[in-house]
Every structure is written in structure tokens, then in C-alpha cells.
């Protein structure tokens, strides 16, 4: 029986054009621009200076707190400058710009492709090394992984859940990674299980990836404690709370983290990065990025160094189509529209999606006809139509009461509304303000 989460959900057109496309290694660009804020939490502190020579995998910016992450050079060459550069957020961010020279890696990195099953590090060492390797959630949330692996005192974790759902339409990088690096992901899973001291792990995969379900199920027979759970195709199943609900039927309470119900969630791409960090001594400086879109000539999945300009990726997929009206970093439901194709790929870039003109603008907003469709699709059981009205009228107290902070910004409400109402835009505004009010109250 296919499982899924209990509340709401939608099923947008899948459009997985790049499914089954082998991961291609993208040529190294002539220059990379590596932002120092690629993760949730404090920006890192640069530890190189203009003119310094760097190798691939060398640390170039240090984590500046517990919730922060190291950043490693994705290329070898010379630091050209450290300056503010436009990135995917739409703002100019401090970035380390490196002119590429050759491809010389740190000697400590094991570049062989052989599978290394034996886990020698202790739980504590794994957590520490995951942090050192600069690993963050690669599904798009970019939350530093070592933080999630450090179970807070008083809480217990009894299960690890891996996100192989890839519920965003168009994207296929995790899918392809499971097909090509399945064993590595399973060893990575065991590493995470060891770090969390749990003996059970579930990998959730949606049923539109039957080949991956079959492949992983077969491989997993050799790995104790790991099961594959096929899931009904339903967005936003990749949301942590939804995935936990779908796989094990536990509901994370409002305002709480998954650990509250004894679960930790990691994405399969992140798990692969953990494998490479622990078994191959390789920090995180490259990742698989899907490049896709309805008019893209050769949609595909590319192993890309962080800092590579997005336009290089688009070039590799056949060039930017004439009718492109929007370039999205990430998927169509939660991704960010990019201001330019010059911005760099970061650790959180799961895909580059090109939207043709006619799909780039929104329909005309009409008045709410009270059809209640936004209510029935909300996976958090909220009342989007009401939250929007409250936000428009700046009634923050009631917004908080109506649990606006529970919103996971999945966009299902805006997607569904027949009146094209910008529900999530207003809800975000409200979350910002209500969040501030709540924080100032706690001070």
C-alpha cells in the first residue's frame, strides 16, 4: 500500500523531462564566485585573502557559530577578490571570487570511485566531521546537517528518515543520484544511523520513481535496518513534517522540530555528501543540479562545482531558449526567481528551471469566491484565505491565533486558488511580522 501524508496536498503536472538522464560532469568554469552565506544561520568568515592560492577542497571560509557551515574551495586557482556579488537571493552578498587554474585537489581527498563500506569513525567523530565538511541540507533548505545530527539533551531519536521524495515538479537530481549512487547513499544512511545511534531508517520515495524504488529496495537488502517506503505522489511530501507523517504516521506538533517525535530527516543528496565526507574525506563543494524547462533543448542532470555561474549550466543544457521569461533556482513550487543567469550555483541549488514567457506571469487576481479549495489543499490545516485577509488588514494577533507560523510556505494554496489570489505572498508578510512580534515578546 502506498502511504502519504494525512492533510491536504496537490498533484501538479510532474514534467520530469530530465528523468533518466545520466549525471554529466559540468566543465569547470574559468572563474567561480562563492557566497559566504549559502546556508541557514550565520554567514561564514573568509579565511583566505586576495591573491592566495587555493586547492580544490581547501577551506576558504569558516563556520562562525553552531548554526553555520564551513565553505571549501570548489576549484584550484587564485583568490581574485572578496567582494559583494549578486546571488540567488536577489541581493549582493559577500562572495569569494576565484580565478581557476587547473584542477588540483587537496591530497587528503580520496578521489577513487571504489565503494567503501566500512565505517570506522565513532558517532561523535561523524558529527564533527560532517560539520567540518560544510554539509548542509541539499534539498533546498540548506540547514547545517551536523546540527540536526546533534540530538539535544532530553530528546531521543529512534528513527532516521531519508527524503528521496523529490516532490517538486521538474526536478530529478535526487532521483538520478539514487539510480547512480544508490550504494553510496545506503552507506551514507548507515553512517547517519550510527551518528544518531538508531537502528532503523526509512527512505521515502514517491511512486513516480518506480525504477528508483526497485533499485534501492534491492540494494537495501544487504543493509540492516534500512527499508524503502514507496509513497503516493503528492506535493508537498518532501516537507519534513509531511514526510514523517507519511512514513511513520507521527505528527510533529506545531512549532516543534521533528526530534520531538523521535525522528531526524535528511535528504538523499545530503546523505551522499555525508558518505563522501566520511569515507572519502571530501568536503562539500559540488552537487547534482537539474537543468530543465518546457523549451530547454537538452534537459539534464549535471555534477556542478559550487560557484559556477548558472548560465554555464544553461549552456550545457542547450542554451537559453528564445522565449524564456523566468529563470528559477529550485523547483516551480518553492524555488526562487533569479534576477540574472550570472548568479552562482550554491550548495542549495537543486535545479535551474527555465519558464517560457507565457508561464512566467501570474493570472489576474479576482475576489475570493469562498470556494474553500485553499483550505482543503493546505497540508498544515490552515485557512489560507483568512490568513491573507488578516495580513492585508494587519491583524497580527489573530493571525498568530490562526497559526500563521505553522505555514511551511509550500504554495499549495496559491497554486490552487481559482481567483489567482496571492495567498502565500501575504502569508509570508504575516509570518515575518508575527515572527518578529513573538521574538520580541520572548526577550
Amino acid at each position, binding site marked *: 500500500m502506498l502511504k502519504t501524508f494525512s492533510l491536504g496536498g496537490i498533484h501538479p503536472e510532474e514534467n520530469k523531462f530530465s528523468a533518466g538522464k545520466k549525471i554529466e560532469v559540468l566543465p569547470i568554469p574559468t572563474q567561480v564566485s562563492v557566497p559566504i552565506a549559502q546556508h541557514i544561520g550565520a554567514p561564514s568568515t573568509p579565511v583566505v585573502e586576495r591573491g592566495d592560492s587555493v586547492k580544490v577542497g581547501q577551506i576558504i571560509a569558516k563556520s562562525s557559530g553552531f548554526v553555520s557551515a564551513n565553505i571549501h574551495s570548489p576549484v584550484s586557482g587564485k583568490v581574485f577578490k572578496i567582494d559583494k556579488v549578486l546571488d540567488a537571493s536577489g541581493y549582493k552578498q559577500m562572495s569569494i571570487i576565484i580565478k581557476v587554474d587547473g584542477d588540483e585537489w587537496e591530497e587528503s581527498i580520496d578521489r577513487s570511485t571504489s565503494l567503501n563500506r566500512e565505517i570506522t569513525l565513532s558517532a561523535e567523530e561523524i558529527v564533527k566531521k560532517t560539520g567540518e565538511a560544510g554539509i548542509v541540507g541539499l534539498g533546498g533548505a540548506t540547514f547545517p546537517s551536523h546540527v540536526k545530527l546533534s540530538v539535544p539533551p532530553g530528546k531521543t531519536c529512534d528513527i532516521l528518515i531519508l527524503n528521496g521524495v523529490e516532490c517538486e515538479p521538474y526536478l530529478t537530481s535526487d532521483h538520478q543520484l539514487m539510480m547512480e549512487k544508490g550504494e553510496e547513499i545506503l552507506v551514507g544512511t548507515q553512517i547517519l544511523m550510527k551518528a544518531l545511534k538508531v537502528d532503523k531508517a526509512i527512505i521515502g520515495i514517491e511512486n513516480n520513481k518506480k525504477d528508483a524504488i526497485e533499485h534501492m529496495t534491492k540494494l537495501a537488502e544487504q543493509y540492516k535496518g534500512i527499508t524503502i517506503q514507496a509513497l503516493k505522489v503528492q506535493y508537498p511530501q518532501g516537507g519534513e513534517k509531511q514526510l514523517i507523517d507519511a512514513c511513520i504516521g507521527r505528527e510533529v506538533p506545531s512549532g516543534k522540530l521533528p526530534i520531538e517525535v523521535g525522528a531526524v530527516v535528511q535528504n538523499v543528496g545530503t546523505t551522499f555528501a555525508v558518505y563522501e565526507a566520511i569515507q572519502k574525506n571530501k568536503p562539500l563543494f559540488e552537487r547534482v543540479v537539474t537543468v530543465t524547462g518546457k523549451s530547454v533543448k537538452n534537459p539534464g542532470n549535471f555534477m556542478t562545482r559550487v560557484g559556477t555561474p548558472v548560465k554555464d549550466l544553461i549552456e550545457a543544457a542547450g542554451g537559453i531558449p*528564445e522565449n524564456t521569461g523566468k529563470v528559477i533556482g529550485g523547483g516551480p513550487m518553492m524555488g526562487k526567481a533569479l534576477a540574472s543567469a550570472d548568479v552562482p550555483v550554491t550548495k542549495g541549488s537543486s535545479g535551474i528551471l527555465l519558464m517560457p514567457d507565457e508561464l512566467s506571469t501570474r493570472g489576474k487576481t479576482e475576489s475570493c*469566491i469562498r470556494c474553500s479549495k485553499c483550505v482543503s489543499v493546505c497540508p498544515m490545516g490552515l485557512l489560507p484565505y483568512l490568513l491573507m485577509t488578516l495580513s492585508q488588514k494587519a491583524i497580527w494577533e489573530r493571525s498568530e491565533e490562526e497559526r500563521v507560523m505553522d505555514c511551511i510556505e509550500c*504554495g499549495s494554496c496559491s497554486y490552487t486558488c481559482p481567483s489567482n489570489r496571492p495567498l502565500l505572498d501575504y502569508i509570508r508578510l504575516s509570518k515575518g511580522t508575527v515572527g518578529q512580534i513573538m521574538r520580541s515578546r520572548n526577550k
Partner: protein
Amino acid sequence: MSTLTISPSPHVHSGDSVKKNMYGVIIALIPALAVSLWVFGLGALIVTVTAIAASVLFEYLIEKYLLKVPSTITDGSAVITGLLLAFNMPSNLPVWIIIIGALVAIGVGKMSFGGLGNNPFNPALVGRVFLLISFPVQMTSWPLPMQNTTAYLDATTGATPLGIVKEGLANGTSLSELMNQVPSFVDMLVGKMGGSSGEVAAIALLIGLAYMLIRKIITWHIPVSVLGTMAIFAGILSYSNPEAFAGPAFHLLTGGALLGAIFMATDYVTSPMTNKGMIIFGVGIGVITILIRVFGAYPEGMSFAILIMNAFVPLIDRYVKPKRFGEKVK
């Protein structure tokens, strides 16, 4: 590549629109319209065309000259109001009364509150109840089925099944005898009985329901709770005294129960926003309908019941919340 659009996520839309939903409802009403034309002939045609034309025209005029806002007549909602208004009138109603009904429905019921989405009461029912109170004689003279194919104002009339039973019981006739005077259940199913022009066709209305459910225009909650409640309530009454109270089948097939439950109570604007709320709303309508029919002054109660429950919708929406994620106890 020209300039890139920057907008917040989501970047895709379902493609659903107000029009699609409204036209969907209109399509769902077509089978019932067909039966109405078959059963009541020319009169039904005149009533329907007049009601739709007048509703659309009034919406156009009010938006253009009074409110001075862009016209919304193409969204289909005025057509639905007109169609439902016609369905709730006898097929021999004079044109001028129909026009007054449309003016009240659109002008008072809808536009005075700010147009589509803002009206608390179902506009067609506002029009209908206004007419029922203002023109009680014309609004309760019911053309006989299958006998007035070419007649309009001169149609031969008779009582509706609900009217026959109500009157008969008041005069002391036994229910079993009255049941012989009303059309058979088979005739009721296909629409061969007296009544408002669009309420008689049980099967056609159910086809419309199925269509709207499949197209996800509405959910099952309201129709099922209204009809289920009526059936249970009528069942209990009839079980307690079979000679005084008609049974569930009779109540469900007569007096616009299906038309109301499927098409009037489910009006987006005037019904609750949560599934739980919809069920409360539906149960309320079911109970009130039977109470009015059995114990009230009018033989039928659906319109009043829906309007009464419409008034409770803001209260229901304020206090009935959906199940929130994370409320389940582990």
C-alpha cells in the same frame, strides 16, 4: 530572452479559474434544465430565458452605472443565479414577476453586498423568497406535469406532492390514502410531478451532482449531510407514526430537496469553508427543512432552511476550524 520576471513562489498555477467552476455548475444544471423543458414545455423555456437574461442584464447595468466597476457578467455567476431562480419558480409565472425576482436576486442579494464573494445569502433564494412573500398566489400555482407543452400563463395547475400531503393531513385524510393521490416514486424520479420548474427532476439533479463531484467543483459534505439528515429525521418521524408522517423517500424526492441540497446549499460564497463546518451547515438545513415541512405553515422548507443557515455561516467559520496538522496525539 527579454527581461526576466521576478516573483515569489509558487511559479506554477493549477489553471483553475472562477469561470471554469461557474461554467462547470452551469453544465451540471443542463440535465435538470432538459427535464424541466420536457415536463413543463414552453412555460419553462420562457421562465428560464427571462430569468437568465434579466439577471445578467441587471448585473451589467448595476456594475456599469451604479457601482462603476468593471463588468463581471462573463464569469458565469449571474447566469447561475438566473438559472437557479428560474428553477425555483413555477413555469407559469408572468414575465414581469420574474424580472422583479431577478432584480431582487442580483441587486439586493448580490450587488448590494459588493458582488460575487461578498453576499451572505444565496442570491437566487433571496429573489425567490421575496417573490414568495410578495406574490404568494402566483408563486404557488403549480402547472401540471406533461400537460402544458405549449401552454404558458394559461397552464392547467394543481398541487405539488408536498402540498397535497400537507393539506390532506390537515383535513384528516390518512397518509396511506394521500400517497395514492401523489405521483409514484418512479414518476418523481424522472420529474413527472408538479413543482418549481427545475426541482422535479431527481435523476437529472443527481447526474449534475455526480458531474460536480468528479470535476471537484464541490465536495460531498453539504449534499450528503443535508439529504442524510432529512432522510434520518423523516425516517424517525415516520417510524414513530407512519400514518401522520411521510417517509424519507417522499421527502427527498419532493419540494426541491435535491435542487437545494445539490445546487443551492453548495453555493461557494454562502456556505462554510471547512469540511466540519459544511457538515454542521448541512445538518442544520436538513433539520430545519423537515421541521418547516412537517410542523410549519409552508408545505416546503428548503429555501428558508438554506437562508437561515446562510446567516450562521460567519459564526460557523469563526469557531469551526479544520483539523490542524500536529494536533493528533501520538
